[in-house]
């Protein structure tokens, strides 16, 4: 391996200029992205008096978590003053099964489409890909009718159904493209060993799929957790997800605009996707290296 530093001309003036340019660009991008997060975080830690007195970019005088507590358990959304907590739980109850089911179905169908090349597999795959390009708005009305027909309208179960169905296109795409690179001989060997479709899937394919499972989970969780339109359209009152509740909390403030509570609520609503990314992201890298089995 050639060590970049020892290559001829690697330490010249032009190199330094190039580095400076790259660093400046990166710094600017970082400020651009982190600036709003800083404002939200610091505002959530101030009290209202401090917000009114100080400037937007001032650091909070002390770490004051009152606004966080209020946003979590006592802020009023409409007439209920229980904070975001019940809606946060709704979102958890909605996301976990949606993510799990759509990932499992995606893995199964991706496996069937790539390693059991039955007649018409490619056409079915192409049709499934359509699902990735259908905008939410188009399906709202037929989906509402379907949910009504199934008797799960205005419920978290209904949202689970919607998100699972919507996610299958994406998860199938992920898994199918991952399994295409798995050698066919592995399936043939397992067939000779006497394993059937599901046993091969369970004993051989799934253990190989850690990196793509993580990709699928991160993607699906982010999609489902952050989704607003379906939540706003198909649920109301107590079964709304946290995204809808956050919107209502900010819109339903009566007297004074409680910026600190709004900011804290926004951070609470955004936290899980961040946590999932941080935890799963580590496994993601680990999974990638573990999956790099030669031959």
């Amino acid at each position, binding site marked *: 391996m050639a060590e970049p530093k020892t290559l001829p001309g690697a330490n010249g003036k032009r190199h330094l200029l190039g580095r400076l340019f790259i660093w400046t660009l990166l710094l600017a991008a970082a400020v651009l992205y982190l600036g709003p997060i800083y404002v939200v975080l610091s505002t959530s830690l101030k009290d209202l008096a401090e917000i009114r007195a100080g400037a937007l970019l001032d650091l909070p005088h002390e770490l004051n978590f009152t606004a966080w507590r209020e946003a979590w358990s006592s802020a009023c959304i409409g007439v209920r003053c229980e904070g975001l907590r019940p809606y946060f739980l709704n979102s958890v109850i909605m996301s976990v099964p949606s993510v799990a089911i759509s990932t499992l179905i995606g893995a199964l169908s991706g496996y069937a489409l790539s390693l059991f090349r039955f007649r018409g597999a490619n056409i079915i795959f192409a049709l499934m890909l359509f699902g990735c390009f259908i905008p939410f708005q188009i399906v709202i009305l037929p989906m509402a009718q379907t949910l009504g027909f199934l008797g799960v309208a205005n419920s978290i179960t209904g949202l689970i159904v919607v998100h699972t169905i919507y996610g299958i296109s994406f998860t199938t795409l992920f898994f199918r493209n991952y399994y295409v690179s798995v050698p066919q001989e592995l399936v*043939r060997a397992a067939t000779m060993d006497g394993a059937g479709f599901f046993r091969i899937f369970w004993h051989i394919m799934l253990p190989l799929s850690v990196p793509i499972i993580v990709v699928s989970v991160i993607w699906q969780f982010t999609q489902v957790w952050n989704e607003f339109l379906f939540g706003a359209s198909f649920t109301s009152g107590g079964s709304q997800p946290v995204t809808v509740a956050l919107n209502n909390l900010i819109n339903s403030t009566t007297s004074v605009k409680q910026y600190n509570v709004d900011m804290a609520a926004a951070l609470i609503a955004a936290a899980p996707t961040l946590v999932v990314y941080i935890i799963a992201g580590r496994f993601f890298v680990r999974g990638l290296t573990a999956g790099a089995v030669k031959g």
Partner: protein
Amino acid sequence: MATISIEHASKSFGSTKVLKDISLDVKDGEFLVLLGASGCGKSTLLNIIAGLEPMADGTIRLDGEVVNDVHPKNRDIAMVFQSYALYPNMTVERNIAFGLEMRKISKAERKATVREVASTLQIEHLLSRKPSQLSGGQRQRVAMGRALVRRPKIFLFDEPLSNLDAKLRGEMRTEIKKLHQTLKATMVYVTHDQIEAMTLADRIAIMKDGEIQQIGTPQEIYSKPANMYVAGFVGAPPMNFVEVDLVKREEQLGAILPAVLKGEPVDHFLPLPNSKHLEARENTKVILGLRPEIITDSTSTHSSAPEIECDVEFLEPTGADTLCIIRLNGHPAKARVSPLFACPPGESMRFTLDTHRACLFDPTTEQAIT
């Protein structure tokens, strides 16, 4: 007991016919090698025996029983794959035991059988490793272990040694041969390597374009090739083909072999032994097939075989022998001589041609004249 019998098997992928009406019998305990260049259909034929691919037409019998619609797992066949196809997530032990596990054999029994197979293959110390921690040769052994552990009646090998380096390939070849002798199981082995085919096989089936060109013992294939394809495919360096005129001189049928001596063209008359078959072809052209070892230096042989003297253009020393490139009927041909008697390039020397071992082919059909 395990015999394989294939009758009129054919198969196509789209519009290309990969197998054309193949019929083949493998005897109990026989080691059959399917030999051919890539794309000749040999792997497809193996997959059909395994049951991994259906055939369009034909019958396949194992032990006389038609198994066209029998699932691979119920055929009592084990297969070793070119890429080894070890399960990357399982340890070596579980890899070997997987087939038993799927057949619901108890854990204790599984463990004992795996140990036994591992000791035969000398991989006991590897049992707790993952395939990614093994070298190519070790993976190969594990793949063999996975096949052995089930004690199937038929073993199939799909180019199992092609990913190994030359030295390991030689060692594993010996092991496979040893294994065949101890197990006395029926084995079908696919390869494109003629050395593997010659050393391992009881019989070789040479395939080309979905058809079997010849089936026979390695010796038959080598010394009595059925056609020019087989003759050219087997043997290294390959057989020399020279187009010659068949003529009769003083009641002796023979071939006129044009060579070059001291830069001048000379014609040699080669009397041919099996004259009866050739009478009808008098005064026509035939293709004379001469393996390099048939053309050898006159000094080290004491036979009454005909001799020719001709110029040597180049030398290719291989160690044990030296190959002399001479010119026969305008085309270069190789002669295998002892390094002691090889003349320097550019000079001429005398060669003995063992015409008893020469082959003759029809120039149009390319089939052997017998």
